[in-house]
């Protein structure tokens, strides 16, 4: 089966573009057009048997798979697109946000969210109205704990 280039598939199917917009959470207006533009933003994960001679609208029946990437405020993300053609008509489109894209974006931002050690600040230095930690325990648990401790010391 021929596997036309990702961008050609996507350019040929408005449905896929519309779905791509959805998959991108509408975070970037240009995501769909970027993906479908001649300057390919789409990556080539499944672009194993590209056929440059294929003209738009001239595709063999079958299921095509591709990966598209788009830029959002958090960085690059990807979606996988699976599309089924019968007699030149798209009969099924499936768009799946890819974990790797989410994770990558997550990891890019993640660097700022890790510390080997956190000393903390004195509670009276931070202006807060509440404290959240391990759930406070009730009188019953605390009393029992005190009893256990005193028995252990006896």
């Amino acid at each position: 089966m021929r596997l036309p280039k990702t961008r050609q598939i996507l350019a040929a199917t408005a449905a896929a573009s519309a779905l791509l917009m959805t998959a991108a959470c509408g975070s970037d207006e240009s995501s769909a057009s970027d993906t479908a533009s001649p300057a390919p933003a789409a990556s080539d994960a499944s672009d194993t048997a590209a056929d440059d001679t294929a003209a738009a609208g001239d595709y063999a029946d079958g299921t095509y798979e591709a990966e598209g990437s788009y830029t959002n405020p958090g960085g690059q993300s990807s979606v996988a697109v699976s599309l089924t053609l019968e007699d030149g008509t798209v009969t099924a489109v499936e768009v799946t946000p890819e974990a790797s894209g989410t994770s990558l974006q997550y990891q890019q931002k993640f660097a700022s969210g890790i510390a080997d050690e956190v000393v903390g600040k004195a509670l009276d230095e931070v202006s807060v109205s509440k404290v959240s930690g391990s759930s406070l325990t009730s009188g019953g648990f605390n009393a029992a704990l005190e009893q256990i401790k005193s028995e252990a010391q006896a």
Partner: protein
Amino acid sequence: MESWTFEAIGTAWQIDTQAPLAPEVRDLVADRIERFDRDWSRFRDDSFVSAVAREAGDRELPEDAESLFDFYTDLHEVTDGAVNPLVGRALSDLGYDAGYSLTPSATPTAPTSWSTIDWGGADAQRRLRTDEPMLIDVGAAGKGLLVDHVASILWAEGLRQATVDAGGDLYHCGTTPIRVALEHPHDPTKALGVVELEPEDALCGSATNRRAWGDGLHHVLDARTGRPTTDVVATWVLAPQSCMLADGLATAHFFAEPERLLERWHHQFVRMHADGRVVWSPDLQGEVFA
């Protein structure tokens, strides 16, 4: 600001409102908590949970069972079985029992996988069918759900400015955010960080330092072994509009990689590992004092 404080379901509650809560509103809150306790407490003989623990049977599910069991089913899956409401027996064996013996009475074992339990799942007719006694502990999500219920009562009673706090598990309603300190698990006089709760945000924390009663004995058990977990020592989760979600995810963060949880549920987290390492959401509404 007015505060109503009381003890219920094994923790200290505080409800902050602009004006003192009317007695009839307090009664509604107290009744709701009592109903929840009568169904889900493993510390009283007359509860649904105690009945299931006594003998096998085919029982009608109590109120809230579907919310809790559905969520536990998701948590069980995403943590590869580490979160399981049947962990109650292991907790009890380790000493966190109905009589607060705080003395291990048996070697804990991994409970039956939650995925094998027949409770109707997506079926219309939902009943719990068990062929042996089982001790359910909904500690990973029940308190959060009850906080949600209490917040709903206050809202229904026309209170638009209220913060429900069940031992540090919070639901905040109002027009302005509040700042909440994350208690340092190794030093309760210090804050590890501060988060800002917007109206309709919930925050839950879980740590192994307080519900602890002996060497390595605390209440966060890995259901795959029946023993206390050791890698993560404290977690916080901020989730919009659901304290149950925040509560359950705070437990899940002891076991699952953050990526996996973030992909599935919209939330923010902070977690501290046993080696002192602290990891948090890149988009945290707040600050970790690194």
